[in-house]
């Protein structure tokens, strides 16, 4: 609460250097403009380049034939049969990972939101997959867990009398989803745990006195309270998961055929394997637009939260 008051006071209080009020604006600009300019040059200018390239048929292998083709790359995007597969892969991949990590993250957050001996240790162990370098995770899972001959999973399944399965070749998408879910469940868990810890103990007790069981309490009290946290977690994870590249590169390289090629991976193939700058850029613009839509909703939630805080 103290922090909230301070924040409000800062909003209402006059600028600290009252005497220099006239200079306040220029001083503010002086302090923040280097960062802003840096971000514009490094992030917005390249997007404009991408937009420009996307209107050409520039290919590094045939640079002499480069010409302006207008919206052709975008039209191709909607007509190409492969694109449908790629979009389907992207949706299957992102939604499976987000949904699974939401479910597991929720369960783990509920389990961790109790006082017990070893809680700190459990939490520390549980967040580790998120901290491990993604390419290390991918190399580790591919070799030591998914390997059909000596991998841990196969050893375990065979010991139970099951068949010996070459996970990455037989179930490529499920394998990648498994790795990425393992990496991202801690993220969801941490956000939901923060949400659970901000839930007032009184409302839980009140529900119990009113005779609500654990499921009813969860559904009517906990879940509505967590809504904002779930939204933030899901949107952020969508943004991060859509950018995933290393795990796919290490395990399946987008294959077999195009079975695990997502939009991100396809842009890599289009630009650095086929050197098709024009088309890769058009796909890149699509990726940027999509990310902006998700970001828009994310920022709207943050903003509404801040307004609520300011009013409360």
């Amino acid at each position, binding site marked *: 609460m103290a*922090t909230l008051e*301070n*924040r409000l006071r*800062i*909003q209402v209080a006059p600028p*600290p*250097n009252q005497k220099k009020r006239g200079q306040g604006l220029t001083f*503010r600009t002086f*302090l923040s403009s*280097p*960062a802003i300019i840096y*971000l514009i040059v490094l*992030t917005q200018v*390249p*997007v404009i*380049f*991408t937009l420009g*390239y996307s209107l050409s048929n520039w290919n590094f292998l045939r640079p002499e034939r480069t010409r302006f083709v207008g919206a052709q790359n975008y039209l191709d995007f909607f007509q190409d049969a492969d694109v449908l597969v790629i979009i389907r892969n992207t949706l299957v991949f992102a939604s499976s990972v987000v949904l699974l990590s939401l479910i597991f993250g929720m369960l*783990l957050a509920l*389990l961790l939101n109790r006082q017990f*001996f070893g*809680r700190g240790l*459990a*939490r520390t*162990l549980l967040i*580790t997959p*998120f*901290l*491990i*370098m993604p390419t290390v995770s*991918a*190399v*580790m899972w591919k*070799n030591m867990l998914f390997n059909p*001959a*000596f991998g*841990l999973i196969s*050893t375990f399944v065979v010991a139970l009398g099951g068949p010996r399965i070459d996970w990455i070749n037989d179930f490529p998408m499920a394998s990648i989803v498994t790795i990425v879910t*393992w990496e991202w469940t801690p*993220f969801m868990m*941490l*956000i939901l745990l*923060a*949400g659970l810890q*901000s839930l007032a103990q009184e409302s839980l007790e009140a529900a119990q006195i009113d005779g609500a069981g654990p499921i009813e309490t969860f559904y009517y009290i906990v879940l509505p309270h967590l809504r904002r946290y779930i939204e*933030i*977690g899901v949107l952020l994870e969508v943004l991060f998961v*859509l*950018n995933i*590249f*290393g795990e796919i*590169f290490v395990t399946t390289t987008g294959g077999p055929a195009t079975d695990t090629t997502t939009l991100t991976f396809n842009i*890599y193939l289009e*630009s650095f394997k086929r050197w098709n700058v024009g088309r*890769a850029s058009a796909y*890149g*613009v699509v990726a940027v637009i999509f990310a902006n839509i998700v970001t828009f909703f*994310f*920022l709207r939630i*943050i903003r509404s939260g801040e307004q609520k805080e300011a009013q409360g």
Partner: protein
Amino acid sequence: MKTHRRKLAGHALSVLTILIALLIFFPIFWMFLTSFKTEADAYTDPPLLLFTPTLDNYQVALQQSRYFDYLGNTILIVGFSTFVALALGVPAAYSLAFYPGKRSNATLMWVMSTRMLPPVGVIVPLYVIFKNLALFDTHFGLIMLYTAMNLPLVIWMMRSFLADLPYEILEAARIDGSSLWQEFTRIILPLALPGLMATILLCLIFTWNEFFIAFNLTINKAAPLSVFIVSFKTSEGLFWAKMSAAATITALPVVIAGWVAQRQLVRGLTAGAVK
């Protein structure tokens, strides 16, 4: 009777939680264990739990490969990009926290949106520009890009930490007539130090682990560890123990940093949207 049963159920849940945590952590533990095996011990069916540990793999991974070159590149790139991001970002965060104007909120939102820009959306022009300006496969090039990745994080986190500082202390300092620089170095910085450390750790986690940009914009001169570790992606030959050793020392610094900064992790990850 009822309370007794509830207590028992509580203990069962606690044990379950710890078991799940151990299960999820197990692959990492297994990799760590394998890094101390001989290659022959690493490939057994059933897997070996008891074995004579050896440090050979670390010696091989460290000396026979170019591990130290990659490590040096990573440290250089991560260090400088974090430092420059702080130098640019902390003043911006300061002004946004203490001199909020009409457009401050919009600026903050825009800053965050630049962090959400998918790297694939800009990788082609970056490649072209880097080739043309001789930035390709240079430390300087990667430092520039990673700084842009860290900057939104620094601005958001530091603004949120600075805005939480008790205002009375700042006011008291002003009445004492200290200059802005004194006020910043003597009062604000010490108070915001935990926040600053958390910010640095998050920058470290993200840039240390970054792969996509590094992989496409370097070959070998400036390639960081994330690129080095991918050379273990083929599963031919006996190499699990060496791979485990290399992977362990590669991932370890960030894992430790993350363990230390657990509490600040959430806040940094969600841009302060979640307290």
